[in-house]
């Protein structure tokens, strides 16, 4: 009896057996690579107006150039006796057919903002309204004065500090963080945002003296962004352990790596789990050993 002919199966190369226990290299992980923001998304009426003006000027310059190009082309065509080129059409901004209407910063018209500017004078750096919210940016040294005014002034009367938080702006020059205070007036049904811009190392005055509820919010800001507040009763970490290194919500803090334990399949003596992991990753097109550098 002759044996049935078995078609030759193509040789699949065995996955390489790893030498040691498989350890994911977090230092080389793509998520470990930090992409620092390039812009400073700090809402501001002045910046917005400057941007709009620059865009309008660029648009105008482009239109003038188009017309000049047309004139030269027309003259050339006339000289050569060809048909005249089509006159240029000024491009109209495209209208999107959707239910979105981007809220842009607007001039401050609200009485509260005007009152703040009247009382604080030159200490107010900017006031504007956006998306129905009032923003008042004050000088970083006079935040306590502004908070006291908001709390005690009979016309303002903001009783409650709803929220206090900060944002990291590594790309900015002159400051590194913005600290925002969201105040609520329960009796007048109004909200107000106070904002200060703080450079690295500057210690803004604590709001605890005016709003005792700021205690934990400022501890959280210190914990997450590393802004220390002057005269705070208890400037310690709140969410992270006391010996934690770094400030997680800064933009230069990686999402993967710090404080994360390496995964080693210690129980996997025969290397089975490792092989499965590598195989599965291979099917998905992921090279676990050499993660992409981008």
């Amino acid at each position, binding site marked *: 009896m002759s044996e049935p002919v078995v078609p030759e199966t193509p040789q699949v190369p065995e996955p390489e057996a790893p030498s040691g226990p498989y350890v994911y290299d977090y230092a080389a992980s793509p998520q470990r690579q930090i992409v620092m923001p390039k812009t400073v998304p700090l809402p501001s009426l002045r910046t917005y107006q400057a941007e709009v003006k620059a865009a309008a000027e660029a648009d105008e310059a482009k239109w003038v150039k188009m017309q000049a190009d047309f004139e030269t082309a027309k003259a050339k065509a006339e000289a050569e006796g060809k048909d005249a080129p089509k006159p240029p059409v000024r491009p109209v901004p495209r209208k999107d057919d959707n239910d979105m209407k981007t809220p842009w910063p607007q001039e401050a018209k609200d009485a509260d903002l005007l009152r703040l500017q009247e009382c604080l004078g030159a200490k107010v750096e900017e006031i504007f309204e956006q998306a129905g919210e009032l923003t008042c940016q004050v000088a970083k040294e006079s935040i306590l004065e502004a908070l006291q005014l908001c709390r005690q002034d009979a016309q303002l009367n903001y009783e409650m500090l*709803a929220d206090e938080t900060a944002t990291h702006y590594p790309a900015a020059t002159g400051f590194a963080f913005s600290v925002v205070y969201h105040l609520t007036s329960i009796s007048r049904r109004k909200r107000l945002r106070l904002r200060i811009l703080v450079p690295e190392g500057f210690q803004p005055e604590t709001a605890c003296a005016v*709003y005792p509820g700021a205690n934990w919010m400022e501890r959280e800001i210190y914990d997450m962004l590393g802004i220390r507040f002057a005269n705070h009763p208890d400037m310690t970490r709140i969410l992270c352990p006391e010996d934690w290194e770094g400030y997680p919500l800064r933009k230069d803090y990686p999402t993967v790596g710090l404080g994360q334990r390496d995964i080693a399949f210690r129980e996997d003596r025969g290397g089975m789990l490792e092989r499965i992991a590598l195989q599965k990753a291979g099917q998905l097109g992921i090279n676990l050993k050499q993660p992409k550098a981008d």
Partner: protein
Amino acid sequence: MFKNEEMEINLGPQHPSTHGVLRVKLRLDGETITHCRPMIGYLHRGVEKICENQTFFQGQVWTDRMDYCSAVANNLGWAEANEKLFGITVPRRAQYIRTMLNEFNRLASHLIWLATHALDIGAMTVFLYAFREREDILDMNEAFCGSRLTTTAFRIGGLREDLPPGFEKMVQKFLAKFPSCLEEYENLLNENRIWKKRTIGVAKLGAEDAIAMGVTGPVLRAAGVPYDIRKAFPYAAYAEMDFEVPTRTEADTYARYLVRMDEMRQSARIIQQCMDGMPEGPVMAKLPKILKAEVNEVYHATEAPKGEIGYYLVGEKGSSNPYRFHVRAPGFINLQSLPKMAEGGLIADIVAAIGTLDIVLGEIDR
């Protein structure tokens, strides 16, 4: 023989009454608490950091997992904050459905609060009754969006789906029996001697202190301040709803219990109004597939069952991720007032104080 020095003990982090992983450092003089320091962070997952590295749409699943007892309310705040950032107008029908689901969620959250709070203090029976009704609400969540607890109920711009067929029947069935259920709970507790002894005059927090500490929600309303964001800064369809803001002036645990019970009645009223006045039309706004932000910052606060939940978002020009995503968690701010409530009281009463604040540590630690 007797020592007269103060004793320091830890309540938690693994204590059944702390509803999560809360550690409270207590200094005791006999049975009286002289110093109280809540220590949090055991459930810190870095939700804000994670959401900053995801698109605007992807943040929603993390809001579910903050306060897992009121996922829908968290979703609503998140969706509306995003809509404010982009300037999106949501169709009216979607607003109504959102309002209704949010109120159902308030009921579920208050029911689980009632059940566990009563259990902490020693009333076992009401736990079983309250969970029975909560089950119906979770079934409705399941009918609407497929999941019971972590709902991911809404989308930026509206809803993913309209109400499923037969939903109205479920709602009417629930509303028909719910008032009698509330009476059942109140029969068990309102005149219960032990319940009254454990709650009346316990963990007081006056209006002035509460406002200074930023406390919101039923705890503030039980101190006599009629501050409800649904009325003060109406959102969703609350401007069109007719309801009252129940308040009490006693500012103790019993008053907070009564406020929450009254709130449940008002929620049932709002649900009925939503069902009656449900407009027809689309449930999703017309939006581009990818949302790209402009430079803008918004703080949007809504009334979650626990208090004011606020989302602070900063948009970066041309980016589909939020530059900054911050959550003002009601529990985080409310828990701050625990020392004020507990100091000077008995150690047995701190369990009532923690329960009455209605905290969920998943939201506090984020």
